[in-house]
């Protein structure tokens, strides 16, 4: 049972079975994370606003609930776990033994337009891997991402009533299209072109010479991507390895550079640009049939630590717990 009547817009209370189901899911996912050597962190719901100015800009900064405390301090309610964790850990990197495996769960609040399935307060569960070899860390975290998704889904069949029910994970590299976009549209128009390609605009993509990117996810000739072609080549190899490993698990994995076209183009926007703003390398998102939003998103965000004067590779992801619960409910219905 969920109640939202009588509460501020975009929040709800989970009672009885709703509360039990969420806690059970959290427990199952937490157990898997602990088993893989991840340690839980408990982060505060309140923080100062100032540290987030260099970390979050644009839309993410506007989404923060902020207020002046009685002692005159400008505070924010927790809107994201990752930057908070990064800002707390960055000054202590020298004292920490890397790689560091951490996970968290809890609510975040963001003032955002109400859309289907999108609340202003929602529960997240996420994990971060700091330090270590980047390529190995990327693969480890993607594997963990898949395993948590499969744990949340349970034993859902791959085909229900003749319909495919595979989970779909989309891989990309932030900034992979930047050189091609700048070459096609110039500095002033490239951001707009990136947004159109992220929206799968076929005409804009064709005019930019990136038709294949919206049609099949990446160009046959990776050299059109310039300096990022190598990273995409490695990503395709990673996709093949993961596809092979999850062949029997009804998980479809595809490389789709258009999905993340607008992620890194404009360095002036800082680490908070775009819908998945602070990622600067590998990016990924998971979708399920019949869901309105991505179940989870993640990626590499070394730039966040660099902007905090720390030098640490970092990759992580988060899931929307309510969306994962829908996945379980869909399984029960099927």
């Amino acid at each position: 049972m969920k109640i939202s009547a009588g509460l501020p817009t975009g929040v709800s209370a989970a009672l009885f079975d709703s509360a039990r189901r969420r806690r059970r899911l959290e427990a199952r996912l937490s157990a898997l994370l602990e088993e893989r050597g991840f340690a839980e962190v408990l982060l505060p719901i309140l923080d100062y606003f100032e540290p987030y100015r260099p970390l979050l800009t644009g839309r993410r900064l506007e989404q923060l609930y902020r207020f002046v405390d009685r002692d005159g301090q400008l505070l924010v309610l927790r809107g994201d776990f990752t930057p908070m964790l990064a800002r707390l850990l960055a000054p202590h990197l020298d004292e920490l033994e890397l790689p560091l495996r951490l996970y968290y769960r809890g609510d975040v609040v963001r003032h955002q337009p109400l859309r289907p399935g999108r609340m202003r307060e929602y529960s997240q569960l996420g994990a971060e891997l700091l330090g270590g070899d980047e390529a190995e860390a990327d693969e480890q975290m993607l594997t963990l991402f898949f395993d948590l998704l499969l744990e949340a889904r349970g034993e859902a069949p791959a085909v229900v009533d003749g319909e495919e029910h595979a989970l779909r994970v989309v891989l990309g590299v932030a900034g992979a299209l930047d050189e091609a976009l700048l070459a096609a549209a110039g500095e002033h128009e490239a951001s707009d072109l990136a947004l159109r390609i992220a929206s799968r605009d076929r005409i804009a993509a064709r005019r930019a010479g990136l038709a294949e990117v919206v049609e099949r996810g990446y160009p046959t000739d990776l050299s059109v991507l310039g300096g990022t072609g190598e990273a995409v080549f490695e990503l395709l190899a990673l996709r093949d390895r993961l596809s092979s490993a999850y062949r029997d698990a009804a998980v479809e994995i595809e490389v789709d550079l258009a999905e993340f076209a607008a992620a890194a183009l404009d360095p002036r926007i800082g680490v908070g640009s775009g819908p998945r703003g602070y990622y600067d390398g590998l990016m990924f998102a998971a979708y399920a049939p019949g869901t309105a939003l991505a179940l989870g998103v993640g990626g590499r965000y070394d730039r966040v630590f660099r902007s905090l004067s720390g030098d640490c590779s970092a990759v992580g992801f988060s899931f929307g717990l309510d969306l994962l619960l829908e996945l379980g409910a869909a399984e029960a219905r099927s």
Partner: protein
Amino acid sequence: MITVGLPKGRNLGPARAALAAAGLNLDGLDSSRLRQRFPDQDLLGTPVEVLLLKDWDLPLYVEHGIVDCAIVGSDVLEETQPDVFRPLQLKGGRSRLSLIAETPELPKRSGQLRAATRYPTWAARLLAARNLHVEVIHLTSSIELGPLLDLTDVAVDIVQTGGTLRAHDLHEVEVLAAVAPTFVVNRASFHAHRRRLSGLLGGLEETETGGD
């Protein structure tokens, strides 16, 4: 099953024509029925279901994944700003959003102008971009009555042929934006049906009545 949402009203004809030209023939579509299956039509082996919905409701159904893809007026998309993919616009059924007044020029007022429109958010955005900060009055129909009955100084509304304007002796002061039926796709459905939709979109793009 792929569920295609089609709009009731002015965009239905161009939408059907474009889909037919791209190979998805919906002959026998009954415009009085909400939900119809077309067992003879399929996209790469997947049956097609059509939902006929109001233009203004379609983005919500697509965003929520109840409808996999749909053809919706870009005017509705600009006003509602749904989080959906917009792969292409159709050539047929195009129109324009215009600033309309009783005079050929924008009326001179000492105070703030008032504009009647069914697109309060989009109109305010477009007018602000032209340094016109007007008071926007939201009407749901017969927008031209705003200036005619002195509720407002101007109207911001869709113009197709200009017939309504001529009939009421109104003037199209300025075209603010182009409007076109737009093919939209739910994010999750795009990934689930990528190959199937890609074929349909390719067909739409190539046809005379298709995308531009």
